[in-house]
């Protein structure tokens, strides 16, 4: 009982994930600043932002429904915290696992997007409604390529259990190179899920103020931002576990730095992609995702099926 509580609250639960999320947010912002030849924020900036938001007053619009308004950030945070439990970090099994958990994982990562939509819709402010509608529209664009890319790797490993997938690839490391197109597609689709430039259309600051989060302030906004940061880590860990799982099963004093290095590599790629592109318009994004990303993911699935059928027997 105590052990379960320890796993849920401390490691790899709330405290571990929150601290790691502050560190990765700092790394992301510092890299983004250095790419732009600026100095960037100091080390404790994300923690300072969180504490400042927590100390401010929550303002709830009169026309909105307070119960749903307050519940959405908690739902988003809960979904991503639960998703983390199934991902293998530096060993070949996560905290818990069962057959089919990779599908559950992907759906748990979709829940935050739905909470953004509901949060924006129930805010009843014009800008929030437009942002909410854009979030759901964007969901139709990046979700299918992301699912296809992650499941292509699962098809090659012949299992729907994340622990088995990680074990399969760490036994045959050269197959990681086969999955490179899927990694490319997953990185770009992740930009859409995490709502970063070039796909930060729902939160486009210069067009609709703050999109879905326009009416949020104080503790609720702090929880939403914490949820987004933890979602970044969960998505990066998922990518690291499914697409670059090598060196698992080594002793922990080697495995932990390797895991952190993999996450930081994914964050580096995300920060670089964030700084070199301009924002897409929603119709351009649909066109791009369905004409460029989806075919590449589809090609990856066919390739994996061929390799599984003929090479691996």
């Amino acid at each position, binding site marked *: 009982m105590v052990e379960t509580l320890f796993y849920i609250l401390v490691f790899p639960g709330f405290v571990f994930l929150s601290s790691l999320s502050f560190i990765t947010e700092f790394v992301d912002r510092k890299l983004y600043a250095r790419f732009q030849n600026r100095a960037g924020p100091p080390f404790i900036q994300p923690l300072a932002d969180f504490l400042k938001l927590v100390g401010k007053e929550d303002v709830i619009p009169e026309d909105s429904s307070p119960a749903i308004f307050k519940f959405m950030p908690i739902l988003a945070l809960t979904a991503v915290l639960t998703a983390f439990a199934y991902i293998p970090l530096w060993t070949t099994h996560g905290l818990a696992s069962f057959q089919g958990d990779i599908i559950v994982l992907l759906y748990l990562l979709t829940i935050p997007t739905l909470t953004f939509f509901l949060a924006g819709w129930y805010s009843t402010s014009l800008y929030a409604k*437009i942002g909410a509608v854009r979030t759901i529209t964007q969901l139709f664009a990046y979700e299918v390529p992301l699912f296809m890319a992650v499941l292509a790797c699962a098809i090659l490993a012949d299992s729907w259990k994340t622990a088995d997938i990680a074990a399969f690839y760490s036994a045959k490391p050269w197959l990681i190179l086969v999955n490179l197109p899927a990694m490319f597609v997953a990185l770009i689709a992740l930009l859409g899920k995490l709502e970063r*430039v*070039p796909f930060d259309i729902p939160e486009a600051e210069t*067009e609709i103020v703050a999109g879905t989060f326009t009416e949020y302030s104080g503790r609720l906004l702090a929880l939403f931002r914490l949820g987004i940061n933890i979602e970044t880590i969960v998505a990066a860990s998922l990518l690291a576990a499914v697409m670059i799982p090598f060196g698992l099963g080594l002793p922990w004093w080697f495995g932990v730095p390797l895991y952190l290095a993999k996450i930081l590599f994914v964050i580096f790629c995300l920060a670089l992609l964030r700084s070199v592109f*301009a924002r897409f*318009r929603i119709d351009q994004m649909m066109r791009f995702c369905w004409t460029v990303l989806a075919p590449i993911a589809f090609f990856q699935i066919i390739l994996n099926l061929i390799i599984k059928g003929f090479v691996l027997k």
Partner: protein
Amino acid sequence: MAKNVVIPVGPQHPALKEPANFSLTLQGEKILESTIRVGYNHRGIEKACEERTYVQDMYLIERICGICSHSHSTAFIQAVEEIAGLEMPGRGLYIRTLVAELERVHSHLLWLGVAGHEVGFDTLMMYTWRDREIVMDLLQVLTGNRVNYGINTIGGVRRDVTKEQLDDVMKGTQTLEERTKYYIELATQEPTLIQRLSGVGVLKPEDAVNLGAVGPVARASGVARDARKEDPYAVYADLEFNLITDNHNDVFGRAVVRLLELMESYKMIRQLVTKMPDGPIAAKAPRKIPAGEAISRYEAPRGEDVHYVKANGTEKPERVKVRAPTLANIQAVTKMLENGQLADMPIVVAAIDPCFSCTDRAIEIVSPDGPGILVWKDLREWSIEWYKERGLDLSGLNKKLISRLGR
């Protein structure tokens, strides 16, 4: 679900740098129609000019706008010098033109950064504003301040330039030219940027002429108007440069026009530095300007700036009127936003390089009895009534000003 939504963009909005109101009627993401309201930045500068001497007015006119401050100051001074019939020394005019071209460089680099920010390309903004620092440092060494240069005086300029400062100007121009070439390559090769700028804010050439667009907005639609070529003032008659026009008719064309104008400005700065004559920097100007009136045109970075000054033989002008370029361009925005998308609104408005501080001058109130003009006293009484209805009594404010005006 064909309900139309009216979304107010402004007066406070992250897309706008200054307050203005655009009411957009949307259907989904498509803009059906738009109405524009300006006037939030009216400060009564034209009236304040009538109460101050010409020497004090120079600084007041300069502060109409931060980015094109030298434009307004020079346009005003040129009108006053024309009324007074002064003979201008060559070196003074060369220094004035040098500062004018440096200001054009700084304004276009600023616009490039703002355009990048409006489409979500923050990296471009940071790099162009870093390069703008080179120009700001040059201007600070030449004139003593980074904005609001204050280098004009009636009859010429206030400060002289030394040989070292001119060498620094040449070196800075060299660096900026290489960087601008990189930005021209980036603007023509980066597909995410091109797809946001092309095809939006389309303004056909006949619409540009009918709606009275000026500056880079008109030149990007193929209309070849430039006050430096048509009505050369200062030393533009002695300089060689090209008039840049483009045929794209959209925001991408405006970006190309501004980038190529930057290259022309570097050419002009080099010519100014090598050809600068020696001599005095200012002519002796009288304190009382004789009666007369004059109009002066100036090509500001945003377009054509027109100033009208009427003097009556005293130390203070009788009437000053300012027509800023944004007032001419803003009427074209409604045409450009037709059938566009909501996501295009920020970049279309930013492409005309709006400066609402320049735009807001006299107010005309339309009442049920027909259009009329309110004088200061009536405006003041009306505002005191308005606040009294809401429980505040402000009739004791500014009694000294009322007694000084005496009307």
